[in-house]
Every structure is written in structure tokens, then in C-alpha cells.
């Protein structure tokens, strides 16, 4: 039961990713070519609505369904970590036209080659974990 609700939200997320076409390689190309407002509209609307959601949660001190405090984790400040890591991520995002959410969703579309991307991203995560002490953070 505890996990069923996460499964349902996941299903909703997969449907949104598909119907918004955010899982399309072409849409990501189009976004980086500044050829359409579509992707900016999706992210922009989500951020503005999300801002209302987080403000609402903070104002009302809303609790989770299990009665705990909702955690809105602040992120530690640093520049190199986010700028360099972000750039590496961006290179991969534009290349495969998919970020992690769409990666999983595309698997549901039966595009088998995306499994290779997922496995490679696991290897990338593993190598990051190993090199972590040597990277600027």
C-alpha cells in the first residue's frame, strides 16, 4: 500500500512525459535550437506552479500523509560542482535527447536501445562515485 501511491504517481508522470512530448529527442533538439517555446513553456509553468506549491507547503506547514514534516531540502552552495557537473549533464542531455525521466518513460515505449543509455548512465554514476574525491565540488 505504501508503495502503490508512488507507483500511481509514477504512472501519471510517464503519461505526462509522453503526452507533453518531453520524451522526444526532436523536442530537445528544438529546445536547444531555440526553435519553439514548447519545452520552455512546460518547465516554466511547472516552476511557477511549483513555486506556489512550495510556498503553500511552507505557509501551511503542511505534513506528509504519514504526519511528518515535509522536507524541502536546501542545497549546499558551491559553484564548480553545479556548473561543471551541469555542463557534463547538458552535453549528455542534448546528445541522447533524454534526461533520466524520459529515459525510463521511453523504455515503456518499447524502444530497446534506451536500455543501453540507462546502463551507460549507471556506469557514469558509478565512475562518478569512484572519482568523486578527485573532482572539484
Amino acid at each position, binding site marked *: 500500500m505504501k508503495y502503490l*501511491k*508512488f*507507483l500511481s*504517481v*509514477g*504512472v501519471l*508522470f*510517464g503519461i*505526462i*512525459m*509522453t503526452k*507533453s512530448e518531453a*520524451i*522526444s*529527442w*526532436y*523536442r530537445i533538439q*528544438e529546445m*536547444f*535550437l531555440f*526553435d519553439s517555446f514548447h519545452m520552455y*513553456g512546460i*518547465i516554466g509553468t*511547472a*516552476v511557477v*506552479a*511549483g513555486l506556489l*506549491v512550495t510556498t503553500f507547503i511552507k505557509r501551511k506547514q503542511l505534513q*506528509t500523509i504519514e504526519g511528518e514534516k*515535509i522536507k*524541502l531540502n536546501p542545497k*549546499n552552495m558551491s559553484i564548480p*560542482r*553545479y556548473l*561543471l*557537473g551541469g555542463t*557534463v549533464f*547538458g*552535453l549528455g*542531455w*542534448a*546528445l*541522447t535527447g533524454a*534526461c*533520466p*525521466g524520459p529515459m525510463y*518513460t521511453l523504455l*515503456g*515505449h518499447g*524502444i530497446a*536501445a*534506451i536500455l*543501453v*543509455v540507462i546502463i*551507460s*548512465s*549507471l*556506469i557514469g554514476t558509478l*565512475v562518478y*562515485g569512484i572519482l568523486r574525491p578527485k573532482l572539484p565540488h
Partner: protein
Amino acid sequence: MIFVTIKKETDSIFAARFFYVNNLIIIMIIEFLSQPWHWSVSGLSLALVMFLLLYFGGELGISSTLRTICSVSGAGEKCDFFQFNWRSQLWNIVFVIGAVLGGWLASTFLASPTPVQVGEKTEVHLKELGISLPQDNPEVGGLVPMEVFSLGNLLSPTGFITLIIGGFLIGFGARWAGGCTSGHAISGLSNLQLPSLIAVIGFFIGGLLMTYLLLPLIYNIS
């Protein structure tokens, strides 16, 4: 007796009509949902997903599942970074299993009547690179260029670079930056986190470098 039969007949006619109308409504809803969604509807629904995850005691951040999978697979024995209580992150694994299911449901029951439509500038750019257009890939609803996303292409330069190196960069970069599009661009920016803004600027530095400089090189050498 006659009265009873008549009543039964009207009942069954009523029931048939009820189911007919009900089915029509369901068909109309499915047709409505099958259209590509407007960006505002998509954005609002994403904010709803973010809210539900927070309310259920989780948070929206998908790339962390990659770290969890590494940890579940035993990477913690060799590397401290993967030594954490992965059981506390299982909800996120269930969430992405849901995303796979949602992708399957949407592609099976809510497939768009038309392939993805991209702008003219993008079409011209793709033709220059020799990449097929969305309308050339109707079998996947025009979502991805199938010549790139095919297992047979894996050992060609474009396939290897796109799928293997691309995936590697996503996993490496997401963890270095401490999040991906969902964790930084949506969750982080919604919570007015400056680190997330820096990460998103990084996403675009990398994305633009790839789109304008590297992709033309990759697709012209092969």
C-alpha cells in the same frame, strides 16, 4: 405479468443506452487525452506530480534512482559514495517503475494521432545533419530518430556516441551536479535554490555546446 416484461424491457433498453453513453464518454475522454498536451497543461500536471511526491514523503528527483540502483547492486562494498540506506529510497525506484508503466500505457492507449511536429529551423538543421525527421518514424509516434535509437546502430560511431557516451555523461553529470532536470530545473528552481539555477545554466552550456558544435561534427564524420 405483461407489465413486468415491459418493465424489464425498458430497463434493459435503459441499461443499453446507459452503457452506450458511458462508452461514448470514455471514448471521447481517451480521444481528448490522446492529443499532444499543451505546454501549460503539461507544466501544471508536473507541478501536481511534485506536490504528490512531497505529500507522500518523497521528492521529485529522478537521477538519484541511478545511485540507488548502483547501491542495491552492491557498489557500496567498493565505494563509500554508494554506502547509504538504499531501502529509504525504494519509493523512488517504485516511482520510476511507474514511469515505465505510464510510458507503456500512454503509447498503447493514448497514442497521438499525428507524429511530433517540430519547427522549420529544426527540420532544416536535421536535414543538414542527415537525421530522419519525426514523420519518417511513425512507428514510434515520431518521438525519436529510429536510425539512431536502434540496437543495430550501437557499434556505428553515431550510435556508440549517442547511446553509450551520451548515457555515461547523463549519469556522471547528474550526480556531479547533484540532480538532473527534475531535481534542479523543477524541484530546485521551485524552491528558489541558487545552486539549482547554476546547475540549469550548466545544463544549457553543455546542451548548446553539444547542439551547435559537437553534434554537427559527430553526424558529419559518420
